[in-house]
């Protein structure tokens, strides 16, 4: 479709074509990243509202039981969909894939541009939902009916949720356009010598996550459309006979559990859509900065493929106590624990890559190591929740909150930070400030543990999630209030620490240290472009010829401790 534009590589003219409606994958990547980070900042402020209420109950009058639920809901939706998914696929996917596989651009540049602008529209719709009558939805990020769409339950049960569903539908379209592009590009536009098993793990992970996105988002779309019909047009797909507000409502015959199946059929692969790219980015950064080839490359690839396949048959482990046929519990518990095996393989491989390396503890490396740590604790606590009977007392408590924040929230965002610090010099030609970067890391990483480890403790005491106030709960000791205050204080500190990152991001653009061609002395193809900051078309007259895998570090007998992917074959073992 966009091949005519793709073909002639002359520089587009004018600020509109160059920076706004650009078809250059690098510009689109930056656009995605900036919008996603802005939206994520908003999502983080919403999380402060939640923590202010829980840490200092009653101190802040403007937080009420109704808008508290809106904060909870929108925080979850924004972070999972509009920040993590958009940034990892739209941002990193766009930036890294063509440069890492030696392509000049994406397979469909016009579609790529449309993908970003469609995403942008979905963000506008999501924000607009705050201003419709009744405000944004407060039905929880899973939007479970009947509660999410019955007026008189949560706020935003009419216009708010309809707007949000519209936004999600638009997002699904944007994601599909992007996904088609990433997958096709990886299959079609690899340069000479770039076999599948020579691709960096970042590319592999985004490739697999994009396939997951293509196959999982339709479930969100179908569920969303049906929910929209129930809400706006009075159908009864998900709403059975219900008695509310002193009367029987007009709904009849719907099945609320059907919605949960559709939602989690999307929702579980979604977890891997955001964590796989973070895994890929961390793998590449760890290998580069350990000056050591990634341990078990093919095991890494195959475990990602295994995770992706199994991720489609574990969705109902979110529904052990939902009222679905309880006998499904056996199957979903077994499948869930099976998925622990490839996840463990990946974790061991990161740890082995560190062992006997020559660790360069720069900011990207710190974040990548932080990622491994939070993925370990998040993944291990998943063994409680996936193991059906152990899930029963913990389900919907703060244990779950701590678990998924660590495994897919914190881990993914640490991966994102690692990637931004790592590829920033590629985008701008300048390094981000190391001192500020390290401060940012200490605060974020240590803070994450100080927030979420206590949250496990809150959870085991049985405190349920989505509670506006815990006062009067007799099963938990008084000290749980102190824990909550502790968590909130750290949440605020970590939040403020993100300002350091923001400042660093902005000021380094013009004043950062000049990076040179290959600041991390990486073997990866993306650092071998003719220009430090690659121009339109990325490569010179010829795309590079790849002779080896991207992890050629500390090869015995080599002149340097890395051999670039496109170095001529005779200069080292392929």
């Amino acid at each position: 479709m966009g091949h005519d534009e793709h073909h002639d590589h002359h520089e587009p003219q004018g600020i509109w074509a160059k920076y706004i409606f650009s078809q250059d994958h690098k510009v689109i990547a930056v656009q995605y990243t900036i919008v996603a980070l802005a939206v994520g900042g908003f999502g983080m402020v919403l999380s402060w509202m939640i923590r202010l209420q829980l840490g200092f109950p009653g101190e802040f009058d403007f937080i009420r039981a109704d808008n508290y639920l809106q904060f909870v809901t929108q925080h979850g939706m924004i972070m999972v969909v509009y920040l993590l998914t958009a940034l990892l696929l739209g941002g990193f996917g766009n930036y890294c894939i063509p440069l890492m596989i030696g392509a000049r651009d994406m397979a469909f540049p016009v579609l790529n541009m449309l993908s970003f602008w469609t995403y942008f529209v979905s963000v506008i719709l999501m924000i607009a939902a705050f201003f419709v009558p009744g405000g944004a939805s407060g039905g929880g990020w899973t939007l479970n009916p009947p509660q999410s769409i019955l007026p008189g339950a949560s706020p935003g049960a009419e216009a708010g949720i309809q707007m949000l569903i519209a936004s999600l539908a638009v997002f699904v379209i944007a994601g599909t356009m992007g996904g088609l592009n990433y997958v096709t590009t990886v299959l079609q536009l690899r340069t000479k010598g770039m076999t599948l098993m020579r691709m960096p793990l970042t590319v592999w992970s985004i490739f697999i996550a994009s396939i997951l996105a293509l196959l999982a988002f339709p479930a969100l779309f179908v569920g969303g459309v049906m929910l929209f019909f129930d809400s706006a047009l009075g159908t009864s797909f998900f709403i059975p006979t219900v008695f509310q507000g002193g009367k029987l409502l007009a709904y009849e015959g719907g099945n609320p559990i059907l919605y949960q199946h559709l939602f989690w059929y999307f929702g579980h692969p979604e977890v891997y859509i955001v964590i796989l790219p973070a895994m890929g980015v961390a793998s590449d950064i760890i290998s580069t900065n350990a000056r050591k080839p990634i341990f078990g490359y093919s095991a890494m690839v195959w475990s990602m493929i295994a995770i992706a396949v199994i991720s489609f048959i574990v969705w109902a482990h979110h529904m052990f106590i939902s009222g679905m046929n309880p006998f499904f519990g056996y199957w979903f518990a077994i499948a869930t624990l099976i998925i622990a095996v490839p996840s463990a393989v990946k974790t061991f491989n990161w740890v082995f890559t560190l062992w006997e390396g020559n660790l360069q503890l720069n900011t990207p490396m710190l974040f990548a190591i932080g990622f491994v740590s939070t993925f370990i604790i998040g993944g291990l606590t998943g063994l409680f929740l996936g193991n059906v009977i152990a899930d029963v007392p913990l389900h919907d408590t703060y244990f779950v909150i701590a678990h998924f924040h660590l495994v897919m929230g914190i881990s993914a965002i640490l991966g994102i930070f690692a990637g931004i610090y790592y590829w920033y010099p590629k985008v701008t030609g300048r390094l981000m400030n190391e001192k500020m970067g390290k401060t940012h890391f200490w605060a974020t990483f240590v803070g994450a543990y100080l927030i979420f480890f206590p949250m496990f403790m809150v959870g085991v005491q049985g405190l349920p999630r989505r509670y506006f106030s815990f006062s009067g709960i007799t099963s938990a000791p008084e000290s749980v209030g102190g824990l909550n205050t502790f968590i909130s204080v750290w949440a605020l500190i970590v939040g403020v620490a993100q300002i350091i990152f923001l400042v660093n991001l902005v000021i380094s653009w013009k004043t950062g240290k000049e990076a040179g061609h290959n600041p991390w002395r990486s073997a990866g193809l993306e650092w071998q472009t003719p220009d430090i900051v690659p121009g339109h078309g990325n490569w010179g007259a010829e795309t590079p010829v790849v002779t080896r895998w991207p992890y050629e570090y500390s090869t015995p007998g080599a002149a340097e401790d890395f051999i670039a992917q496109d170095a001529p074959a005779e200069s080292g073992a392929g």
Partner: protein
Amino acid sequence: MNATVAMNDRNGQTQPFPIPAPKIGVWLLLAAMTLLFSLLLSAYVVRMGQVDWISINVPTAFFGSTGLLVAGSLTAWLALRAIRAGDARRSTSWLAVTLGLTVLFLVAQVFGWQQLLADGVLLSTNPSASFIYLMSGLHGAHVIGGIVALQVVLRRGRSGQYSSQDHLGIELTGLYLHFMLGVWVLMFILLSLT
């Protein structure tokens, strides 16, 4: 839509996969749509299995529309066969017929909805009614996408952009229409089951 461009853009290097990029893109799109419609149909089958299911007679117009979609799929194939044989003019004519048939299909679907309404079957009457409207509506929305593609291909065909060697647009648009036919036939069978 020009596949040869992608082939040549790589300094004469061999393609990793001997399939043009747009074709892969369309196949991926169809994979995503397969998921979309199979989830919708699964939801329908699950709901059908519940004891309180009331089935509704499929409107007679849907039989006609099914015929139109079959015919459209057939003429799309004839258009492809014609361009493969190098007969661009005949191919363009078949494309025009396909476009007409596909538009008529949508008209017939709307007519079917009117029949339902005339029978007092509203969207929210009961779950089976809601499903008929939702399934045919979502399918129809995707057929509109096919109509847009057909118009583009037809315009390109008229300006002589296709040849016996280079006709990926016609092929992929046809593929999309065949897929839409397959989805509809499956839906139609399920809707007719009582």
